[in-house]
């Protein structure tokens, strides 16, 4: 085993750990740090369930070696709510029944947050593109797209998209 030190920023915390150099970021989050919101789906980069933000951009944590996150900033679903107050995306997913089994939901919300952080007023096509790497086998996607658009509207202050 190659044990190596790793320091990175995770949600609101500075993390320092000794890890095996072959550990994926997904495994570090779930198995070592106990943050299980990020899901292990296909382990092939096909399903999007393990999506996290690295330096603000969505990446697939099953395909990222944790060692490559040295000095970087990682955001997971655990950091999306604010001291127990749900993020507008989380509320919109609940209100719009955008989750059924819920397995894809953390990845969907992270992918949607990456979109809204960059583009607070997306159209439907941009929302579809943002979650195009995230597979949902329950909802048929429409409630998820509606929820993301509703959250975007709320975050803009209740204003509806003009177009």
């Amino acid at each position: 085993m190659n044990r190596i030190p790793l320091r990175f920023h995770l949600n609101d915390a500075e993390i320092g750990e000794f890890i095996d150099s072959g550990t994926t970021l997904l495994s570090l989050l779930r198995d070592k740090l106990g943050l299980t919101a990020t899901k292990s789906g296909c382990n092939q980069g096909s399903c999007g369930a393990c999506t996290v933000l690295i330096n603000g951009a969505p990446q697939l944590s099953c395909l990222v070696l944790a060692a490559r996150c040295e000095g970087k900033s990682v955001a997971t679903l655990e950091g999306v709510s604010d001291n127990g107050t749900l993020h507008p995306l989380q509320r919109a997913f609940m209100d719009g029944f955008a989750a059924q089994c819920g397995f894809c939901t953390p990845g969907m919300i992270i992918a949607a947050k990456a979109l809204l952080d960059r583009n607070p007023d997306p159209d439907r096509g941009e929302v579809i593109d943002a979650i195009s790497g995230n597979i949902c086998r329950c909802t048929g996607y429409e409630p998820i797209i509606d929820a993301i658009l509703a959250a975007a509207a709320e975050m803009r202050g209740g204003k509806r998209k003009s177009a």
Partner: protein
Amino acid sequence: MSVALRAAASPREACRHIARRDARLIAGGTLVMNEINNRETVTASLVDLASLRLRSIKIANSRVTLGAMTSMADIAAHPKLKFLKPVVTAIGGPAVRNMATVGGNLHAEAPYGDLGVALLALDARVTLETARQRKTMRLEDFYAQHRKLGAYLVTAVNFALPGANRFFFTKAIRRKPVSASVVAVAAHLPRKGKRLAGPRIALGAMAPHPIRAKAAETALDGKALDETTIAAAASAATEGSAPASDPYASAWYRREIAPVYLARLLAQAAGQKS
């Protein structure tokens, strides 16, 4: 899984490492991590290319040079590479596009590797380094020969900027807006007057790596793009191809629809203002 990760100090040092031992290069990770997670690759050592300064897009004298570590998202965001946006935004999803690199895409086997299909139509050159030398070769030759090159590292690709409305791309997929290719078609269609001059057609998922549809190119060269020439090119589209059957499509289906997608792409090109 026990994997040693070491940062590459230079392209040559990276080559020396993979030449000497059971080591693999890792760029964006979408290919090699997939193999590791599937236990297809039992590798003792990964050589991390992130430390090399290979992430760049340079455009000079109408020639585009993409560093090998440039991501699909970098290409999608570049204002002068809009003609490649339909290619890269049909790959993966935003997370994959943030990770997947130009150099990696050239090593993605069918039905993946769509950027390579576009680059083949654009007659791209590949610059690579071995432990001893740097060389530049046509992408077409790279696809044919790279397994025989020994230890090497692709550092960049370059190609001439196509004229406005001269580059076209489409692909057949099973799940919109992104999926692996049932078939991908790229066409670079320079013209002299109304006639095509040196057209290049490339197909993805019609062989283990992207291939040129040379018979279709011959059917188009020197001709005006009309119904007759489009039909002739379409009927020659699959000559020399060897598609595989996989979970996305059967070889039979790929042969059936490659001509249809080529004809549609050419019809779209014919509708553009010259």
